[in-house]
């Protein structure tokens, strides 16, 4: 049974590359375009991992992560966020909001697959 991953990013090109990399690694990928879309999709299906950018319109990644953690249905789901190397403040805020781990942008898609494996255990 392949794991379901939700990717949330307002950049279509990043969504596409991550989808290709993760799908090739055998995962099922669903895309969302911002925090609101991400929340809706997370609520309507069950995901094993959520990968999200932080900087998005309508609802940013931080707010989405917080909202997700408030719902018991999403307790325990790993959430990985994308961050830039210089932003240590963002990292701790995201962790405080309930994120599990991160990957630094720009990232090699294979790296993302490695982190997905680490976090999913498969």
């Amino acid at each position: 049974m392949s794991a379901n991953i939700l990717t949330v990013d307002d950049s279509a090109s990043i969504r596409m590359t991550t989808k290709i990399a993760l799908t090739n690694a055998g995962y099922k990928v669903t895309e969302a375009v911002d925090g609101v879309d991400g929340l809706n999709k997370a609520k309507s299906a069950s995901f094993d991992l959520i990968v999200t950018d932080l900087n998005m319109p309508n609802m940013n990644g931080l707010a989405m992560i917080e909202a997700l953690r408030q719902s018991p249905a999403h307790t325990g789901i790993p959430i990985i966020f994308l961050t830039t190397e210089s932003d240590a403040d963002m990292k701790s805020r995201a962790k405080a909001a309930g994120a599990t781990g991160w990957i630094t942008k720009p990232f090699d898609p294979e790296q993302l697959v490695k982190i997905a494996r680490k976090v999913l255990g498969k």
Partner: protein
Amino acid sequence: MNTMDPIQVFRTEAAELFEQIESGLLDLLHDLSDQDQIDAVFRGLHTLKGSGAMFGFEALAAFTHHCESAFDRVRKGEVQATSELIAAVLEAQDHMKALVEKPNGDHDDMSQKLLAKLHAAVGGKNGHAATARPAVVVPASTPSAAAAAKAASTNWVIKFRLPDNAMANGTNPLGLLDELRELGECTITVDASTIPGLAEIDPTTLYLGWTITLETEQPRSAIEDVFIFVMDDMQLEITEIKAAAATEPAPKQAEPDLVVEPVAEKKQAATNTGPADAKSNKSAENVRVPAERLDELMDRVGELVIAQSRLSQLANISANIQLRSVSEDVERLSGELRDTMMVLRMVPVGSLFGRFRRLVHDLARETGKTIELETEGETTEVDKTVIERLADPLVHLARNSCDHGLEPPEERRAAGKSPQGRILLSARQQAGEVIITIKDDGRGINRDRVRAKAEASGLIQPNAALSDQELLQLIFQPGFSTAQEVTNLSGRGVGMDVVKRTIDTLRGTINVVSHPGEGSEVSLSIPLTLAIIDGLLVRVGNGRYVIPLSAVEECLELSVEDDMRSRGRSFISLRDSLVPYLRLRELFRTGSKPDPFQKVVVISTGSERVGLVVDQIIGDHQTVIKAMSKLHHDVATFSGATILGDGDVALILDVGHLVLEGQKQEAHLRAAG
């Protein structure tokens, strides 16, 4: 989408971003302090940089990085936006476009020039205009100095304890242990000393700690990498065991031990949350509350509302703007509190109906008749006090039916009816009202006797012309029931006129339908601004609608064949029967293209059925009914509206009306041949 070239996708995306950034910058020129625009421009630059780097547009990423940094400073308030800065960024934009088009061209000179302008515009700090090449950072392997430490394996003692909420936040401690196992031979001991008693255990809290001895060839950094995501918040000690050294994890070795204390963390919800998550009115838990507490609470809310309206009055005449603003907030909040209280006080009508079984049973025995009581719509919710006030009138009406309406068994048989009399108690909601009816299949109301009595009581003139309904309504007039009518059962001082008065005080109406020989039906319509039903949420085109679940018989997919076959005929073939259908997207004139797999929701009003063809069935939905204004009373298709969790409005379909429409359509098409 899979066959598209990602680079092409990036180029298209970049073009859009450029447009966005440009219009954002131009808007900013009108209002240099517009934070939303500043954020939007920053976001655009940020995305451009990130995506650019991902797809190999290094020069673009590097250059954009500086623009982004400049804008970041504006965003954080360190620097004011000036028209000079905006002009610089606009010029920079054009250059960025060139960098996207010809990534391998010679752009360095231009880049340097523009960056210099940019730096000048933000106050000339950041001297370096070097194009920083963003490195691809790979978290799992920071080759810290010693690429040595090959071959020889080292023994480590690793002791760790994650914060309580680690699992809730998605960290899998077993996964960490697995990763350690991958590094080499492990012996793992668990520390379960902080597990509380069974009663206090929270399944999402992590109570365990671990101690692992690990023999590995990997460097220390490999061990640290395992914990990279949780490093900051956990207790972690990694101690190298030198041969013949004790396993004291004393933090005074030459080897730098990593002892990290847990950071007190309590996430402050300072971030704005969007509309999608706010209200969740579904809770899996129930709490028992004594009814008196609810009443007390309601009283407090009532007093609060009174005090608030006094506050509003005072605030309105006051010149104090802040006072007015606070008063408005208080008004809104107390309104919301009242609405919430109303919901708390909603009680299913079934609780009232329950009393009637006993009542009807007793009445049947007293009158020597056999009476069967049926109930419908027990889950319809009604405000607690309304239920209490309806109790007596309903009892009286029930008694009336049993006493006067229903005939004794012999008379029924003679009339060709079953000897068992039938009383139907039903409740339903419609257009913001709750309608409770008592129906019997007895004699019906004798118009002549009513007339005679009314004339005798002086209520009407002899030979006055009255419509049937007007005549029947006379029953509820005070003075109508004379002593003759007061039997043992019905005479408790609760006459029909008291029933009417009670309904009037609830701002409701009474309707009587009666057919001689067949029976009577009394309907009480009580308006409520709030009633809750179970609904089925569906989508037709771009709009979402609610179908009362009580009317839904079944849901099916409209197969393409059925869809084609049904065209030109107005029936869907459902197992052995033909069900008329309505294509809601046509009825609603959505003008959008239908989803490939249409769904049919078959609804019924007891006797008649109709299929409603929709684009998508979304799911169950606890529907709080909001009445629509008078301006929409003429739209018979909808009986009300509701507000969904994301704040959007969904209209509630009026089942009765749609069934009628279905029948009309059927008749039309039959007539047309």
